């Protein structure tokens, strides 16, 4: 396999890993709040988080491009280290992927928090556990299957994104040229063998992800008996 393909694979895995990590860090408190808040506008926030599921990636990508560009907030942030824009950078891709994959991480975790109900936390409180201790020693372990599903889906979804990447990342090898874009390029260049290799790899990867999520779900079912 050519060096080019490996660069794309490495970059894709790196992007997916960083995105998943960021999503777990910001998605967990968000999921916790969504699961427990009784305010009506929590559903408004939930709907905003879910938007990427229904929006065409080009629409999302367009607004992200504006936001990351020189005249958007992304440009301001980039100015901190002297750059003009976050678009067409790895950092920009991470931000875009976080927005794009957010619902796939937040929803399983939110559901897991909601499914355990109030009771385990009440029990923990009557056993003198502070809210923080109850969260880390009861809520998080009980929601573990939700975290697993969320992380797997977030990772996989980031690996598979195409439209958003094309809109905000373009096609810079080693910086923004991820697998899905690479396949597109190979097909454009009529390099069918390379395209097929990457595409088949993606099929196998997708299959393994779905299998993993199903197996996790089954384990949860057994635990809840």
């Amino acid at each position, binding site marked *: 396999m050519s060096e080019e393909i490996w660069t794309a694979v490495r970059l894709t895995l790196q992007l997916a890993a960083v995105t998943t990590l960021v999503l777990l860090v910001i998605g967990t408190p968000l999921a916790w709040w969504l699961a427990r808040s009784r305010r009506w506008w929590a559903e408004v926030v939930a709907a905003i988080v879910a938007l990427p599921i229904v929006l065409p990636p080009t629409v999302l990508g367009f607004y992200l491009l504006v936001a990351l560009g020189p005249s958007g907030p992304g440009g301001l942030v980039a100015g901190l280290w002297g750059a003009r824009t976050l678009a067409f950078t790895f950092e920009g891709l991470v931000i875009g992927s976080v927005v794009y994959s957010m619902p796939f991480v937040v929803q399983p975790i939110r559901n897991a928090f909601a499914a355990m109900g109030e*009771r*385990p936390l*009440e*029990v*923990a*409180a*009557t*056993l*003198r*556990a*502070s*809210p923080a201790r*109850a969260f880390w*020693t*009861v809520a998080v*372990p*009980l929601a*573990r299957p939700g975290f697993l599903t969320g992380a797997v889906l977030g990772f996989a979804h980031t690996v598979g994104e195409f439209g958003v990447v094309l809109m905000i990342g373009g096609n810079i090898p080693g910086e923004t040229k991820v697998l899905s874009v690479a396949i597109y390029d190979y097909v454009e260049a009529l390099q069918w063998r390379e395209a097929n290799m990457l595409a088949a790899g993606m099929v196998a990867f997708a299959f393994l992800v779905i299998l993993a999520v199903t197996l996790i779900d089954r384990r949860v079912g057994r*635990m*809840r*008996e």
Partner: protein
Amino acid sequence: MTAPTIEVALAGRRGGFALEASFTAPGQGVTAVFGPSGCGKTTVLRCIAGLERLEGTCRVTGETWQDETTFRPPHRRPVGYVFQEASLFAHLSVEGNLLYGVRGRVPADAAVRFDDVVELLGLSPLLMRAPHNLSGGERQRVAIGRALLSQPRLLLMDEPLSALDRATKDEILPFLERLHLSLSLPVLYVTHDMREVERLADHLVLMRAGRVIAAGPLAALQSDPALPLVTARDAAVGLDAVVTHLDPAYGLATLAVDGGVFIVPAGAGTMVGERRRLRIAAGDVSLAREPPGPSTILNVLEARIRAVEAGDNEVTAVLGLGHDGAGARILARITRRSFERLELSEGMAVHAQIKSVALAPGVRR
């Protein structure tokens, strides 16, 4: 300081339901909070634990947990809480559950020690098991042990047996009785089952439709004609008695209560000097104006009618034991026909014939 007590005064609304509960309970022994389902018992208990909040005050053995300016969050209240469903942590083993509320080293002088709890509740074969492999009764025992090991100053139990079938209840009741005897911890025990009250409680808080209608020693409330317990279909009185004599030849024990003695079949291991609880059901007591002749009924006691509650066809008489009627009170359920034929009335001296007296299994302090 006065004797340590539990003082609760709470008022507020819960979903269109007005709750106004104030009562005082002693700082030791088991106080049953008794009433029909939906009368607000559980809400009161949850407020004492700090899991819910109503306006009012809550003081427990000298500490203020809630008043106009204070509201301690639940994790700062030294309670043990046993929920109706055991609610064990599914991700921890039985041992992990038991130890969850144990922070750091347990002081050597701790009131509740791990080994004692395991022994008391028969948990040693379960320690390594996962909660979902336990029976309902086993789970509830673990939940009780877990609550005790957090070294509570007050144990709150919310219908801990009501989710269990009859056989499992009977499996757990002896554990609760032993608990009561071996710990000096005050217990608030919410239930709608009078059988549990009679076996476990010393004090009673009676609730109806969001209000406390009476609070006091169990026997006093059971025989108070102003309260609905007297006319309940299964009305009974629990009397604390002392074993004064044993007759091993016939397997009988003599027990003294205020104003009289009872002769009761003695279980194995009954000892002179023990405090035991007698249960006398109103339906097992009949009345005679003259001392009855020879009879197979062992227990015929002098008494006086202190009060009468007339129903449609039945009359419930509150009796004071002893010639002057000043002793312990029991109930007699008789037909209105007999009541009128015998021309019974308040203040009259009678002979109470008691067909059966049940001796509760647990020894009491």
